[in-house]
């Protein structure tokens, strides 16, 4: 008998409800988006435009734009150079815990997957961060699995306080929380919050996120707005490409960022562009119809739509793809990546299992050199904390 699951559209007790129309606007725009409506002429108009509207963005994401991928790449490179010059920002993620209370069927951390669970102590976090800082990196992204009980807000706050001692930029990729909790983490030293919406298709979302707080679709989609209300400098957006109709998901991701930037003009916007990857105990997971060409189409469409946004290119992609996308459209690249818990410091190696398989395991120094060899300037920091 099928287990009865909670209503994914109903907030749970304790979840803050924002008086905001952003979610409805995003969903409505996505539902109206029919990617078969666009022609080569629409794509050419979008490419020729000086500033690009959501309709231009829609055209650039459509199948009609795929034959124009080279032109999109050329234009994206021009926009990237204009806004960021030669700069490419380096950072690394640090998984401080992998306990999770959600059941997302595609994720290696999901609560039903039999993996080794771990969380770093304050002392271990300090040693890990010291080891990372020694590589020259000045930006860190702190991640946890989504478990409020095993990685509570105070625990994440502690990680931010330690990180602030060693890094100039501290990003968070943790479970969505309320405005006052984001405000607390901001005080502890966090600068950015990234939340992957995974898919903006609520019906599909419901079938993929079977248990846990993550199942509540509207609470997740409003996380970036709560983070901004909590005082964060910037917010990151992503759909996990391959879960649902990737063109609609990419369109919704862009619209989500666009609408929030209009509402909060100071917000620094960033995009991540993850595709599905195999996980421990399930090597059959793959990004389906999102091949490298489609992925590049999405990345360049983000760049052309929001030329000022940071775009991060994931270690899910192979080194050659990443090398070519930086400077063209992406502006941030992770280096020295491990998606297991800890493992940057010798004695903490391999404490907990990894979230997904990575395709680019180059060290910070190797990525640094690769960036320079492309005539680009690796930048460790672009922020002064005052």
């Amino acid at each position: 008998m099928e287990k009865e699951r909670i209503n994914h559209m109903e907030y749970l007790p304790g979840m803050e409800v924002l008086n905001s129309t952003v979610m409805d606007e995003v969903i409505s725009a996505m539902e109206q988006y029919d990617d078969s409506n666009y022609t080569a002429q629409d794509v050419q108009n979008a490419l020729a435009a000086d500033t690009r509207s959501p309709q231009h963005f829609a055209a650039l994401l459509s199948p009609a734009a795929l034959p124009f991928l080279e032109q999109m790449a050329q234009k994206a490179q021009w926009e990237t150079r204009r806004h960021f010059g030669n700069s490419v920002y380096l950072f690394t993620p640090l998984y401080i815990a992998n306990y999770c209370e959600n059941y997302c069927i595609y994720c290696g951390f999901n609560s039903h997957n039999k993996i080794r669970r771990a969380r770093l102590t304050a002392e271990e976090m300090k040693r890990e961060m010291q080891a990372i800082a020694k590589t020259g990196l000045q930006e860190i992204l702190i991640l946890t699995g989504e478990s409020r009980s095993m990685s509570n807000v105070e625990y994440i706050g502690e990680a931010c306080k330690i990180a602030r001692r060693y890094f100039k930029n501290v990003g968070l990729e943790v479970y969505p929380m309320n405005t006052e909790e984001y405000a607390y983490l901001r005080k502890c030293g966090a600068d950015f919050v990234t939340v992957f919406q995974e898919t903006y298709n609520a019906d599909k979302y419901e079938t993929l996120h079977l248990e846990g707080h993550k199942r509540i679709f509207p609470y997740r989609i409003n996380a970036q707005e709560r983070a901004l209300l909590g005082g964060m400098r910037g917010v990151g957006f992503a759909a996990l490409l391959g879960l649902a109709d990737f063109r609609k998901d990419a369109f919704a991701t862009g619209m989500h960022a666009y609408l929030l930037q209009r509402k909060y003009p100071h917000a620094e916007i960033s995009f991540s562009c993850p595709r599905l990857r195999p996980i421990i105990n399930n090597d059959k997971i793959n990004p389906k119809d999102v091949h490298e060409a489609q992925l590049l189409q999405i990345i360049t469409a983000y760049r052309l739509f929001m030329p000022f946004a940071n775009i991060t290119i994931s270690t899910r992609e192979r080194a050659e793809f990443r090398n070519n996308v930086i400077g063209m459209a992406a502006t941030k690249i992770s280096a020295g990546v491990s998606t297991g818990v800890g493992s940057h410091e010798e004695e903490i190696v391999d404490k907990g299992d990894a979230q997904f398989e990575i395709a680019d395991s180059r060290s910070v120094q190797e990525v640094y050199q690769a960036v320079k060899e492309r005539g680009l300037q690796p930048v460790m920091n672009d922020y002064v904390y005052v």
Partner: protein
Amino acid sequence: MKGVFETMNSNGNKQDTWSLGGHTFTSRFILGSGKYSVNLIKAAVEFAEAQIITLAVRRANTQGEDNILDYIPEGVTLLPNTSGARNAEEAVRIARLARAMGCGEFVKIEIIKDSKYLLPDNYETIKATEILAKEGFIVMPYMYPDLNVARSLVDAGAACVMPLGAPIGSNKGLATKAFIQILVDEISLPIIVDAGIGRPSQACEAMEMGVTAIMANTAIATAGNIPQMAGAFRNAIAAGRGAYLSGLGRVLEGGASPSSPLTGFLKDEGEN
């Protein structure tokens, strides 16, 4: 002629100089240092013959392999900027940090709380100018060209006024030309066009209008040959300056001057 003083050089010839906070410069080209590969900065400065180079304090790493400060040639005046500041308070703190780092007394105020267009916040800029000028900084405020704001900046103790020609990085040139001209005409401090200048011809045009100097970054940093473009800007700025000093000839708006004047019918009736 604002900010311009004629001095003698060692050969006894007149030199076209200008000054900021008691420092005299001959170059009218201020170079930005962002957006480059750091190893190209030195060549850009040399080909530009720039005497002032901006430096984002947030980029002035004290660690890491490529410290931008190591690539700036000696003898060039550092102009730290407060990019990243979203209000006067943050700008003031960044300026103080720059001074503590040994970057000197100059500071370019950039206060931006709009991540899309990167337009300066004039109100917060006036506030920061007032505080920093009182603390002895040579304050160079980046602003949206507005005469009232420019007057307030003068009163607040600014050393110059830096109106934008167009949004940062847009390379759109003098989109605000008419308003910059008003500042040139009305403000008795150096006017330095900052942001938007995308081509040497646009820099030349601004200099012809009588602005004191040009600040450019993206146009050079994104050029195919950076040193060559830096040199092209240097020449264009010199040409525009020369044209301004020599007095531009008249430009007829409505076509050629008619050989039969419209007032030729008037009869000379002599004086009563």
